[in-house]
């Protein structure tokens, strides 16, 4: 238990080390989540638009 507390304290520098790593983690997570969310949304949108486009073309050619 005390060794974990010592680990957290980081020789007195804990207040600097952990926020530094925390911010880094946040930035990485942010980049990842934002990218994946946008990618998913765009994939869905593109599939919807291309399906609509193909059906429209089919209807046109059928005329």
């Amino acid at each position, binding site marked *: 238990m005390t060794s974990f507390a010592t680990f957290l304290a980081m020789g*007195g520098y804990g207040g600097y080390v952990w926020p*530094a790593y925390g911010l*880094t983690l946040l930035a990485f997570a942010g980049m*990842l989540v934002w*990218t994946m969310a946008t*990618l998913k949304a*765009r994939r869905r949108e593109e599939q919807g*638009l291309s399906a*609509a486009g193909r059906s429209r073309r089919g209807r046109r050619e059928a005329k």
Partner: protein
Amino acid sequence: MTTARIPLLHRYANPAAFGRLAAQILPWTAGASAILLGLGLYFGLFASPPDYQQGESVRIMYVHVPAAIMSEVVYGLMAAAAAAGIIWKHALADLFVKAAAPLGAAFTFICLAAGSLWGKPMWGAWWVWDARLTSELVLFFLYLGYLALVDAFDDPQRGLKAGAILVLVGVVDLPIIKFSVDWWNTLHQPASLMTLSGPKVDPSMLLPLMLMIGGFTTFFITVVLMRLESELLARRIRAWRTAAGDE
């Protein structure tokens, strides 16, 4: 129907084709990133010694230095891609610049924040105008400038091209900026002994540093590939919308 072979790179301007290629590469880069970052964190925070002078605060170096390296490497890659886009006019090149930019900006931000957190216990101030931090700050604004410019045009293609030219001017200016900041720094702080990379990098510190650099790099590759597919899709979506509007 001709059986002309589509040039390799042009094939991948198609988001579906690019997506398939990315899907083959991504598991490897993502996996490598997770392993390298995990090991790097273990060694950096746990299984490496504190510094003789700086104590445990030296562990901040394991995020500050890789972030600094990535911030500059990414800008260099952006410049190379911008040049390729102008010379070979390949769609992927300009889109790579746009895909990589937010990531480079994020790395620059991490470098500045970690540097500030490292500097406070070392130098007693949340911000010091040392050469490295000041150059990074200017680089941050070079990134912000690109991000603002590329989205400021109604025609996205025009924005991409303007951005590419800006990045090329920026990359030529960057060494000049860094030199001038160094110049300025030595004039005003002749007694500056402390640099943020610490006095010497002990071999036991080299391992976590290399692991983190590798982790940051593979993370960048993973995310930039995803962003590239995302940009290709955005372009395709705009094309569909325009076609639908024409009918």
